[in-house]
């Protein structure tokens, strides 16, 4: 009899472990979906843990309730109705019940934990997690972290999305405050017939205000180094014919406003 209790407890324990694993896997999916939903609305990302946690508790509760001995029997038709009968008749002892317990123990040895895992559902969950992770990666790469619905053109959603993905009208991700015109106007960037295509790496322009320090005082030497000398301008003393020197001198004096 105690062996039957032991077997039933072991089965329940394994089911609980698998329940935790499955609930955890589903909670990760819920977390990733919540995370993706929260990004465009600039809501704190860690709030995604709330629905994930709630899902974990709810799913685990549902799983524990649903995955009972009847479920085990449905997976192993060999012990169908026997396991439940053995469990419900634990306090009784007669020839047939002893035989039933013996049968259940023999058949229960063939039960493996892997039988309880739904491989198809597990694969789907893993693929969904990978897909969601990639979508978060691409969302970060294209810098889509805020959608301005005011500027969203519902008549031409394709263009609006293109702008969102290209970064136009979207925040640059550097610093705080209004920085929508960080790239300037397109007309200014046109030089002659060539369009200046500027691309700024947002991560390279990050400024951390905490890294800014007060300007340091520097003492400079008053004396110039020896190798630096002043020399007089002698352009007008160049090879000018003597008879014209007076005219050139007066010309320079005139244009410089000299006396």
């Amino acid at each position, binding site marked *: 009899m105690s062996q039957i209790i032991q077997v039933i407890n072991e089965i329940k324990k394994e089911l609980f472990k698998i329940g935790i694993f499955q609930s955890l896997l589903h909670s990760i999916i819920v977390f990733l979906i919540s995370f993706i939903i929260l990004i465009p609305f600039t809501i704190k990302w860690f709030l995604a843990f709330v629905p994930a946690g709630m899902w974990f508790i709810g799913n685990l509760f549902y799983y524990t309730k649903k995955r009972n001995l009847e479920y085990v029997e449905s997976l192993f038709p060999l012990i169908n*109705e026997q396991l439940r009968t*053995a*469990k*419900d008749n634990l306090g009784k002892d007669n*020839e047939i019940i002893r035989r*039933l317990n013996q*049968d259940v123990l023999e058949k229960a040895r063939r039960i493996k934990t892997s039988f309880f895992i739904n491989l198809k559902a597990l694969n789907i969950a893993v693929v969904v997690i990978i897909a969601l992770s990639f979508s978060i990666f691409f969302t970060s790469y294209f810098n889509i972290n805020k959608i301005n619905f005011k500027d969203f053109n519902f008549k031409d959603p394709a263009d609006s999305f293109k702008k969102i993905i290209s970064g136009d009208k979207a925040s640059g991700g550097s610093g705080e405050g209004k920085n929508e015109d960080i790239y300037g106007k397109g007309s200014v960037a046109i030089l002659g017939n060539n369009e200046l295509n500027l691309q700024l790496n947002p991560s390279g322009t990050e400024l951390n205000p905490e890294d800014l320090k007060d300007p340091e005082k520097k003492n400079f030497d008053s004396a110039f180094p020896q190798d630096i000398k002043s020399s007089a301008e002698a352009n007008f003393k160049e090879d000018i014919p003597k008879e014209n020197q007076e005219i050139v001198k007066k010309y320079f004096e005139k244009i410089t406003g000299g006396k």
Partner: protein
Amino acid sequence: MRLEEAKQNLDLVISEVRKIVVGQSEMVKDVLVAILTDSHALLEGYPGLAKTLTVKTIGSLMDLKFSRIQNTPDLMPSDITGTYIVNERREFKFQPGPIFANIVLSDEINRAPPKVQSALLEVMQERQVTAGNTTFKLERPFFVLATMNPLEMEGTFALGEAQADRFLLKIKAQYPSTEEELEIVERYAESSNPIKLKPIMKKETIEYLQELTKQVPIARDIKRYAVDLIRLTRTKKDLIEYGASPRASIGLILASKARALMEGRNYVSKEDIKTMAYPVLRHRIILTFEAERNNLTEDDVIRELLK
């Protein structure tokens, strides 16, 4: 005796019955269920479907005292229970009737007058006979296997619902298949050597099997399923006017246990409940006028309940 041996014994009885009775395997099994549960059974079917033959054959295979009551409208209760007679020494002496046997075949029970039916049913319930101031206990095991013909209504007295409730099972004899009927013809119209059977099951064996039947365990939710089914007969007012009593719940569980034992299983399955629901319930429910107007039979309604 182990479970396997019990099954072997019961299989042997069935195979021996098959030497005499062609087909009717469900009927034979249900009669054995009644014996295993220490209960009574009512066999209903058209004439010539081997009802009486089946009971007689099973009776001859058991090493028990067998008697037959051929019911007629002029039968008196004392004709079956027995009566006091004056012997040679001018003393009153109780002369036991045919009811003092282990297996009683009450043929065409609906031909017996209500007084006789009532006396018989009292004996079935109490398993004792009271004559004058003396009560005589009947020897165990005691089964009454009654047969009934649904065709003839003239000169018959229909069993009341309360009386029919005394029978654990109402077994229906079905028409044989073509192959079975061919075999019946070959066996009884072309052969002149009647097969003689010997008793193969002793009284102790039957008592032990009855004890073993009670020991067959049943899961709580299967027990609940059976009880819910019986309770449903009381709430399904569109089809059933009067539902089954708690006696039906006891009977259904017991019959399912017997069925499981016959199958050599050490537990009661939901299928046992479903199978035994028909013979246990068909004489315990009264259909509504609406159901009868729609040509529904008791079996149709039970099938509906099992869905």
